[in-house]
């Protein structure tokens, strides 16, 4: 449970070692290199953006090629394969693999141009098909469609809208032209939508016929230089050719997919180089040396110094960061608290002087989740599923491992809460016993008794428990505030903001617990004796302290009293904070009531049928219902467990605002290079 202490590191080394040192640092991933080095009269920065862009372009090209390979030669991947993490590669293999980069870029370009060619082929097919379709009505026409006529005659080939008979056409032409008897109409094909015709006239009458046809909305036939039936055959051949070519290309791409691993490797190689060049462009260099500065975790400083000194001729300095520096924050936790780092990172990294809240949060987070899901069977499912994945995939990426581990612990606590409050797939034990074994309702309910009590029978007790849990959670938050202030030497602040509030809230709670009206409502026994007097005075001292010191930042006396009174008004926020923990009861009840809805439905259906079908139908309803219930309630438990930490708990002591430590590392996608020891 700690924020890792950082050191500032400065390396001065020969430029001839620049590549080796930077690559070493990148593989180690332990140093955050300053991205803005100060201007210096003796050093300058080198513009390497050109090479960097080339590397990044290559990464993009290979990514495209890989996605082409995924469409043409998809890999069979299971749902769980994404958990197996990046392949580990030794440094030797890495260096051997780099030699392939030109060949791989060649293959990449081949794949991309093949894919482009294939796209053109595939696009041409529908084009041919449309042409073929437009020829369909012309099939029994034995002249080329662009036939214009002979020396003396003119031919008009085209379509008229709607269905026409020969007589109708002559009639219409007769009305539009005086010389219609000199026109020769050939009806080629008549359909409801259009009629294909060839109309021939003498060369002299061309203008007149053209005019008449124009008024009849005549449209020219599709452009084609061949006889339609032959043209259609040719189009068929073209389509077949295009399809064959496309298949051919697909086969070629399939063949190239054998190089998929190489592509992935070189992609990572270029990505690392691009990242490295980004750093090179930002550090100060002279003709002979370069200077590099950054942050490193204090604990890894010595070992890194040792390795670098043994390999290269360098000057290496470590110093403690100065007070006003914004030092990046790295968290370090083990075991139980580690998964919560993700939750903290999601909120905000600890700011200056703040402690790492991961461990103390982990003490409550899993239990909150467990109480809200509160079903032993659901907990078992979650814990087993995540546990098996964690066990099977040792090489899993860190972020995923952290999340799964978090849900593993959540699952464990869900099992605990489930047994404590007597829920295993809701009331499934009682429901199955009643449906299939004829056990009476009263007796069936006692088959799986709750270790403590069943919230369905006594919701008020559970509500009181939730409030009590909330109070402990909030007081722990105040405790952390006091601890942090004391650690930072601000003892007075610890008393004003922590101790007085603890007295104020604690006194109020103690006093309320002596009032019979309240205790009756909560179903607990009223405290007697001196508790009332003691807690009353504790609360009074607390509230006086809050009023006196809550506004200590104000300059004037009036302002100080005013804002002191206002800060005492903050007691209402404690009230709403405590009430907010009623969600532990509400969401817990939601899980068990919905479970029992499905169990009841399954029991009604299953009990009404003969045993064989009854069992099958019961199982179907049971499985569907519980999968649904688990999904929706696990989501609810996750969201609200987060909320209780972020809003209620962190609100008491944690502000964040720190910057996450992001070391210069190999941000690869497929391979992880392992340094030889």
């Amino acid at each position, binding site marked *: 449970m700690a924020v890792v202490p950082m050191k500032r590191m400065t390396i001065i080394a020969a430029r001839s070692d620049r590549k080796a040192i930077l690559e070493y640092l990148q593989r180690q991933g332990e140093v955050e290199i300053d991205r803005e080095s100060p201007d210096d009269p003796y050093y300058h920065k080198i513009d390497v953006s050109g090479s960097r862009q080339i590397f990044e372009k290559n990464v993009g090209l290979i990514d495209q090629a890989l996605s082409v390979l995924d469409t043409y030669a998809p890999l069979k991947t299971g749902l769980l394969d994404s958990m197996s993490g990046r392949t580990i590669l030794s440094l030797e293999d890495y260096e051997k693999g780099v030699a392939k980069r030109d060949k791989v870029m060649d293959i990449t370009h081949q794949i991309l141009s093949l894919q482009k060619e294939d796209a053109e082929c595939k696009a041409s097919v529908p084009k041919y098909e449309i042409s073929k379709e437009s020829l369909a009505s012309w099939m029994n026409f034995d002249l080329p469609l662009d036939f214009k006529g002979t020396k003396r005659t003119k031919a008009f080939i085209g379509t008229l809208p709607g269905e026409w008979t020969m007589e109708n056409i002559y009639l219409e032409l007769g009305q539009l032209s005086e010389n219609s008897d000199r026109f020769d109409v050939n009806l080629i094909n008549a359909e409801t939508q259009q009629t294909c015709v060839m109309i021939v006239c003498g060369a002299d009458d061309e203008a007149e016929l053209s005019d008449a046809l124009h008024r009849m909305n005549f449209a020219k036939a599709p452009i084609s230089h061949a006889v339609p039936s032959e043209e259609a055959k040719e189009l068929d051949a073209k389509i077949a050719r295009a399809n064959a070519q496309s298949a051919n290309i697909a086969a070629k791409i399939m063949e190239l997919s054998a190089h998929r691993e190489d592509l992935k490797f070189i992609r990572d190689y270029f990505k690392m180089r691009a990242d490295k060049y980004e750093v090179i462009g930002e550090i100060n260099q002279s003709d002979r040396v370069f200077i590099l500065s950054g942050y490193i975790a204090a604990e890894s400083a010595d070992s890194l110094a040792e390795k670098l000194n043994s390999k290269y001729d360098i000057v290496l300095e470590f110093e403690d960061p100065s007070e006003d520096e914004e030092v990046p924050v790295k968290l370090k936790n083990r075991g139980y608290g580690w998964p919560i780092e993700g939750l903290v990172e*999601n909120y905000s990294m600890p700011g200056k002087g703040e402690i790492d809240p991961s461990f103390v949060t982990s003490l409550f987070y899993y239990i909150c989740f467990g109480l809200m899901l509160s079903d032993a069977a659901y907990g078992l499912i979650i814990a087993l599923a995540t546990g098996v994945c964690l066990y099977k995939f040792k090489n899993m990426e860190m972020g995923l491992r952290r999340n799964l581990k978090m849900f593993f612990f959540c699952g464990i606590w869900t099992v605990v809460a489930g047994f404590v409050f007597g829920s295993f797939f809701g009331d499934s034990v009682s429901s199955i016993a009643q449906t299939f074994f004829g056990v009476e309702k009263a007796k069936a309910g006692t088959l799986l008794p709750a270790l403590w009590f069943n919230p369905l029978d006594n919701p008020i007790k559970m509500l009181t428990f939730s409030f009590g849990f909330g109070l402990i959670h909030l007081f722990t938050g105040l405790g952390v505030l006091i601890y942090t202030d004391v650690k930072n030497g601000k003892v007075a602040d610890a008393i004003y903001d922590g101790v007085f509030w603890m007295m104020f809230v604690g006194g109020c709670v103690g006093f309320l617990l002596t009032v019979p009206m309240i205790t009756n409502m909560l179903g607990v026994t009223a405290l007697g004796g001196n508790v009332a007097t003691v807690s009353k005075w504790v609360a009074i001292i607390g509230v006086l302290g809050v009023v006196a010191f809550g506004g200590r930042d104000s300059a004037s006396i009036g302002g100080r009293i005013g804002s002191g009174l206002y800060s005492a008004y903050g007691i209402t926020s404690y009230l709403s904070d405590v009430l907010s923990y009623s*969600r532990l009861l509400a969401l817990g009840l*939601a899980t068990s009531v919905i479970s029992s809805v499905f169990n009841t439905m399954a029991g009604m259906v299953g009990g009404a049928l003969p045993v064989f079908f009854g069992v099958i139908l019961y199982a179907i309803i049971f499985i569907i219902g519980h999968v649904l219930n688990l999904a*929706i309630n696990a989501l609810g438990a996750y969201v609200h467990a*987060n909320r209780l930490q972020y809003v209620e708990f962190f609100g008491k002591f944690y502000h964040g605002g720190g910057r996450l430590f992001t070391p210069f590392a190999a941000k690869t996608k497929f391979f992880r290079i392992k340094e030889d020891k």
Partner: protein
Amino acid sequence: MTMGTVFALLGAALAALLAGVGSAIGVGRAGQAAAGVVTEDPNKFSQVLIMQLLPGTQGIYGLLIAFIALTNIGIMGGDANLSTSEGLLYFAACLPMAIVGLISAMQQSNAAVAGIALVNKRPDQFGKAMIFPAMVETYAILALLVSILSIFGVAALH
């Protein structure tokens, strides 16, 4: 069949009905926003799906209240003979969940839609984006609590 049973059933039906309507509207709205994000970046699917589901819980709470009301009224097995005043008590007990469920689901969906836009621009802020809709849900949970306690309380009266 008594008038009391009618009132009680009306309450139970309203809890499932109004809260369900609210959630349907809410999840629908959030789903539109989520689909928009996925067209740009399919990798954000799981994140925006969680955001979409957040306004869906009110419908479940409504179902829950309806179910425990139905069981206690005696409609699901048992004799459903309530006096008018008992029926009205059940009716009143269901109202918080019905009305708060309807309105909070719709309001929560507004926060969820905004949260989805946030996740689209800054996926690393998912944890915070999730909290804003969850704040609205608090009131649905409080209503759920009052309804549950009232129904158990009313059931203890007779």
